[in-house]
């Protein structure tokens, strides 16, 4: 008599447990799709806002639809340089330091280093703004590696007018460009920070095909968080066409790098997920410089100038310039 209801109860609890299990399984199965949906939303939102400082979570479905339409038929491309993103020049002595930012970044990235080199060492510093950067991802998509090189070369020519000795300091893609310039123009020293010459991206050989369909791709969450934290003006989305151009730039660098003869300092970051450590080894082994030095920042990410070891990195750059000049 007593056992029946208790049995029923246990059945109910079992059913509840079962349904709970099913829910758990369903949620587990659906979680990647949820992630994918949030990715899609964040991508479209960043796109529609022309990648303003938007967080990944804030989005509505309507905005997503508008963004999708916008992706099919893009509107006018914004070409005005954003506030604080432009190039800057600090007059100093006859030793000139040409600072170059990385892919999708701006000259703002080099502000602290430029200030330090100018104030403490008295060097003339010039931070260039590469073509298509500091404006909008749409603008970047319409430029290629030749445009980036030309704008960098313009900066070099300008600095050459006032300085007798020139040192190139570049971060990431800016460092690759520095290597290219050093291979074609006489420079006195090069400092490369996390310079890529060979990377392995998923389906990178077919990027030119994918770039037709998907114009922009969102940056990683942690990267965006870092950009927000340091109020960086980097683009929150990457143009796939521009990424394809970046890969071509690396290909050019691999062919030209042996021409480099100036003293070189390669800086690498231990937690760099973008540029593998073997890139620095490859650079050092292929350049024909007599002085080759390396500095390793084990706790830093790709953006070494914003990492925990930025002071050490900047001191190392100062020391290297002093020793080679």
């Amino acid at each position, binding site marked *: 008599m007593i056992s029946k209801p208790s049995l029923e109860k246990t059945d109910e609890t079992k059913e509840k447990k079962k349904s709970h299990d099913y829910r758990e399984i369903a949620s587990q199965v659906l979680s990647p799709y949820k992630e994918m949906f949030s990715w899609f939303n964040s991508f479209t939102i960043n796109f529609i806002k022309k990648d303003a400082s938007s967080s990944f979570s804030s989005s509505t479905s309507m905005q997503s639809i508008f963004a999708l339409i916008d992706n*099919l038929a893009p509107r006018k491309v914004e070409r005005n340089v954003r*506030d604080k993103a*432009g190039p800057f*020049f600090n007059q100093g002595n006859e030793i000139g330091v040409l600072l170059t930012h990385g892919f999708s970044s701006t000259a703002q990235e080099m502000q602290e280093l430029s200030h330090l080199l100018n104030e403490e060492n008295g060097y003339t510093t010039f931070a*260039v703004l590469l073509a298509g950067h500091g404006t909008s991802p749409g603008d970047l998509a319409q430029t290629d590696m030749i445009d980036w*090189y*030309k704008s960098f070369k*313009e900066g070099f020519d300008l600095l050459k007018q006032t300085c007798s000795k020139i040192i190139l300091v570049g971060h990431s893609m800016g460092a690759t460009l520095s290597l290219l310039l050093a291979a074609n123009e006489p420079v006195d020293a090069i400092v490369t920070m996390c310079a890529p010459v060979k990377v392995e991206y998923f389906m990178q050989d077919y990027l030119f095909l994918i770039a*037709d369909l998907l114009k922009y791709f969102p940056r990683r969450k942690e990267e965006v968080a870092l950009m927000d934290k340091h109020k960086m003006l980097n683009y929150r989305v990457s143009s796939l066409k521009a990424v394809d151009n970046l890969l071509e730039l690396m290909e*050019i660098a691999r062919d030209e790098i042996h021409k480099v003869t100036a003293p070189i300092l390669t800086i690498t970051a231990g937690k760099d997920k973008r540029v593998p450590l073997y890139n620095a080894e490859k650079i050092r082994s292929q350049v024909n410089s007599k002085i080759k030095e390396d500095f390793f920042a084990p706790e830093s990410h790709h953006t070494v100038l914003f990492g925990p070891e930025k002071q050490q990195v900047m001191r190392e750059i100062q020391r290297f310039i002093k020793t080679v000049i």
Partner: protein
Amino acid sequence: MNNKNITNHNTEEKPLQNDEKLDEKTIKEFATKRTFWDRIPTFKWWVTPLNIGLICIFLLVIDIVTLPNTAFLQIDWAWWPIGGLIFTYVVSFIIFKRPEIAWIVGPILMVGASGLLLALDLIFPPNDGFWKLDWAIIPIAALLTFGVLIPIVTKFGRKKDKPIDKFRKAVEEMKQQELEQESD
């Protein structure tokens, strides 16, 4: 590119100012020299979809007012021209707005159209031809050849300059420009 003017962050271009005023005769001459394509008027974005909508309504009305009205929602045949119109509009819209994705959007839609033709042919008898198909094999073959295979093959087979060649050419051009500027 952006580094010529360091202090000026605003790179907005000024509108071109044309000081020379064109006289009436030149304007007339210019008008007569325009090609056929220049003379086609342009429309606001809503004109084409609205016209397509009106045509669809017209087709629906004449279908419904004529017998037998036995098919779904009393519409016997109007589904096909309406579907065809919308399909053609969507394809042409995508291809004209984003010609670079035509090589993939076109084939996908052509495969869809082939599937539709295949289904149509299989649904209606006699189904006694090759692979139970009666008439669809010819349009399907044409769609797959010209709408799917040829665009994909031509896209993959496109000639591309080597990055290093492009770079060396650009470097040479820059050096030549520098020499010209120095000689001036």
